């Protein structure tokens, strides 16, 4: 089973990397960009086949390691 965990910064948390990317896009002339926030994507292969178990596993992975929940939110998706 394939899954994806997406980790993003909570709103209100300063994101200097996102700001730098935003500035670079503007200087490249890519128009219409209001703001950029950088996050992380983890593509994960799971060994089991039960969706509920998979979601619980991914949630544990995110809580224990993938996200720092002081500053980050995460979203868990089982893809197939």
């Amino acid at each position, binding site marked *: 089973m394939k899954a994806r965990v997406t980790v993003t910064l909570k709103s209100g948390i300063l994101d*200097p990397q996102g700001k*730098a990317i935003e500035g670079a896009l503007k200087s490249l002339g890519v128009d219409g960009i209001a703001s950029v926030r950088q996050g992380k994507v983890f593509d994960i292969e799971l060994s089991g086949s039960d969706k509920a178990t998979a979601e619980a596993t991914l949630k544990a992975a995110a809580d224990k390691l*993938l996200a*720092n929940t002081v500053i980050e939110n995460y979203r868990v998706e089982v893809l197939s």
Partner: protein
Amino acid sequence: MKSAVLVFPGINRERDMARALRLASGHDPAMVWHADTSLPDGTDLVVVPGGFSYGDYLRCGAIAARAPVMDAVRSFAASGGMVLGVCNGFQILCEAGLLPGVLMRNEQLKFICQDVHLRVERSDTPFTRGYNAGQVIRVPVAHGEGNYEADDETLKRLEGEGRVLYRYCSAAGVVDEPSNINGAAHSIAGIVNEGGNVLGMMPHPENHVEHVMGCTDGRGLFAGLVAHLERAA
């Protein structure tokens, strides 16, 4: 003082730290590997040194914070044991949940390697008793992620409980914007936990302990710890 220095893959300041501890206490610290599950008997100070544990992968300190040895450090701290984390060590202690908040990318996105001035906010703690309250010390920093941030509630508690021990300041001891090198909230350079037994700080006091280093302002921190622990023992 019986100290233990944790060693993680990618750490590079453990020998500087060991040297400073030996200089201050007259004893060699135990070097404790990250995969160990216990601390040496009789340890009374655990030091998490600086460097780039696990290549700063995922988040600075995130993987080291979950290493087997950290469970032992957590229970050591819970029973009142003294813990000092410097630079990457500060990041590791935050990630391990031993200190609140997080070290974010420096505001100006640059790695900063220079001497800074710190104001010692109080002298009545084991980590600052080698100094006078309000004293200004000069120590180096070397980090890309040292911008301390926490939610307003946490910052209010840290300030209210006098848990900010070191703050970035000018040479004259003024805490102002230009001297806040990484954009840290409230110019925070070092904080302690609620129990006052765990200190995390970004600057490197261990690199200013001998005349050959050009400055010995870092000695006070180690001398204070030795005095505290030897009186306790």
